[in-house]
């Protein structure tokens, strides 16, 4: 019972923390004041997130096409 209460408190605290704008400073794209620089951060975040997925999926698709 005690652990359930702890879990409830933790969830409420975590949900509350997400409402605090200061927490967003952990994100490098939100940290910079210049909108142009923020755009670069965001663009690079998108590239570095999408590139491995595209590479792995592209290789998988190519192998599937080659052997099907």
């Amino acid at each position, binding site marked *: 019972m005690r652990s359930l209460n702890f879990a409830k408190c933790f969830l409420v605290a975590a949900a509350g923390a997400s409402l605090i704008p200061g927490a967003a400073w952990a994100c490098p794209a939100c940290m910079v004041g210049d909108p142009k*620089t923020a755009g*670069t*951060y965001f663009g690079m975040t998108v590239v*570095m997130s999408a*590139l491995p997925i595209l590479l792995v999926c592209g290789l998988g698709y190519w*192998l599937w096409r080659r052997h099907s």
Partner: protein
Amino acid sequence: MAALAPNTGNRLPNSVLAMIIFVVAEIMFFAALMSAHTIARATVPGGVWPPAGQPRLPVERTAFNTAILLLSGALLFIANRRTRAGYEKARPYLAGAIATGIAFVLLQGVEWVALLREGLTMTSSAHGAFFYLIVGAHALHAVVAIAVLTAIYFPMRRGTLAPSTFAATQVFWYFVVLLWPVIYLRVYL
């Protein structure tokens, strides 16, 4: 010579698949370097890159060097096509690809010496650190790839080169060749 013709059917040789997976990892390595470089460029005060007081990179000479490396890739591609007529026909093109690859690395070395004399070093600025890190990492890959191309030249001359080994080596060299224009556009321009 017919015995040397690829006889793998539609199956991808394990060595080629392994090389492709390795190249995918290498693409991520260079993407990380260029991502950091892009962010450093964007955050420089005044938005001018290279920063004031830093040596300018030799754009024109490197464009010529880029053409040499692309020629090397084209020669290797022709060498692959010529293997259908036998390794004897392909060998001169492979030798040409090795020679132009060596020329690329040597010209890069000349460029580095000139830049070091101008005061651009790994520790002089972020500009120097990124330049030597990214271009140096590519040069290291080029040297290794040239060593592998040279290593397969001799079995090709003897007629004992496995087609899958030749194919895997090509994948690596094409990666080195095609990566360079991207680096040139991002780092030099």
